[in-house]
């Protein structure tokens, strides 16, 4: 009887240790998947690395999240990445809706806006167009402003297709941005995303 009790006790102890291992690992995976970390900051609906932080010196959780969802990113000295999966009202981007991304030229050596599917891959579409950048976006009459049509249906100008996807995310890349832009990354300098229908 006493031996039986001892075996039961050991069994329970081992089960609890396994549970602790599984629980700790599961919370780790959950936190990586959540995409939230202490190194992030929001500028309107855009997310980027916090002003005082960088990917090379970020916390372990941020390093893991970047490794899984956007590996081999560069540090802020070279590029500023901004991401969003919501419109300017804060509502999740709906692949069945149409949006207008309105912005102005960004003061960087190269900048682009790219659309990705729910797995972070480029979206298959009939015109093989995945992004717009400083060179190929069609500007308005003022040569500075642009409007990009984020939509699943064909548009005549600046069409960024989002066909047959469950979720959309957008990434702005600012390669070698000017010091002025670095210091003035605000809602006013970044593009807005308005739902049309």
């Amino acid at each position, binding site marked *: 009887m006493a031996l039986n009790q001892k075996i039961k006790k050991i069994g329970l102890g081992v089960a609890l240790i396994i549970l*602790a291992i599984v629980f700790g690992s599961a919370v780790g995976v959950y936190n990586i998947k959540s995409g939230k970390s202490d190194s992030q900051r929001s500028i309107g609906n855009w997310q980027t690395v916090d002003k005082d932080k960088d990917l090379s010196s970020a916390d*372990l959780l941020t390093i*893991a999240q970047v490794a899984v969802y956007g590996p081999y990113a560069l540090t802020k000295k*070279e590029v500023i990445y901004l991401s969003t999966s919501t419109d300017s009202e804060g509502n999740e981007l709906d692949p069945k809706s149409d949006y207008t991304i309105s912005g102005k030229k960004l003061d960087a050596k190269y900048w682009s806006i790219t659309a990705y599917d729910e797995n972070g891959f480029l979206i298959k579409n009939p015109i093989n167009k995945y992004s717009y950048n400083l060179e190929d976006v069609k500007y308005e009459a003022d040569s500075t402003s642009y409007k990009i049509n984020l939509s699943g249906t064909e548009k005549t100008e600046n069409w960024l297709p989002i066909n047959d996807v469950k979720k959309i995310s957008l990434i702005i890349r600012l390669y070698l941005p000017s010091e002025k832009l670095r210091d003035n990354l605000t809602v006013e300098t970044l593009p807005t995303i308005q739902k049309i229908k």
Partner: protein
Amino acid sequence: MAATKPLIKNGIFALVLVVIAVSFYYLTVWITPYYVQNKFAEKSLGLVNTPRFGDQPNAENSRVIPLPNPDFLYSTINYDLKDNILKISGIVPDSTYWSISAYQQNTTNYFVENEEKVKSKFEYYLAPEGSTNEVLKNIPKEKIIYSPTTKGLILFRYLVSKAYPVAKLAELQHGVTVEKLGK
């Protein structure tokens, strides 16, 4: 006194469980980037210390690493410095963005140079941190990349632009060479 003994025992055991859970949380978070790098190395068809030249990413050819930039041509060198120091050289485009960047085994970036700093040609020596190898003796400091980990990744980015369409860039891209120098 006899009644408190099991309580203390259970309390210590509960504390051990918390320590185990927290340790495995950090272990999971810490190990994930290494897992990603190893997966990528596996998918590089076993090419180590050899350049791999990618095509311009599109929806079909770019389904391994998330968030590819469709405006770039990428080249990679999946490196292992256990037995070699690597001499990496090539030509830099003059009027479009280009960069060479290095990532340690947990995928964090520890080195980057771009076409604004490197003109015309580049030549780098990739060595493990702290290496005092004879090969590096007469090499200017700015040409040596010291890797914090033995394994890692070198990544080249070439921006496809009006001045440098894909065909023109691909010539430069494929001109990159890697020479293995003895340790």
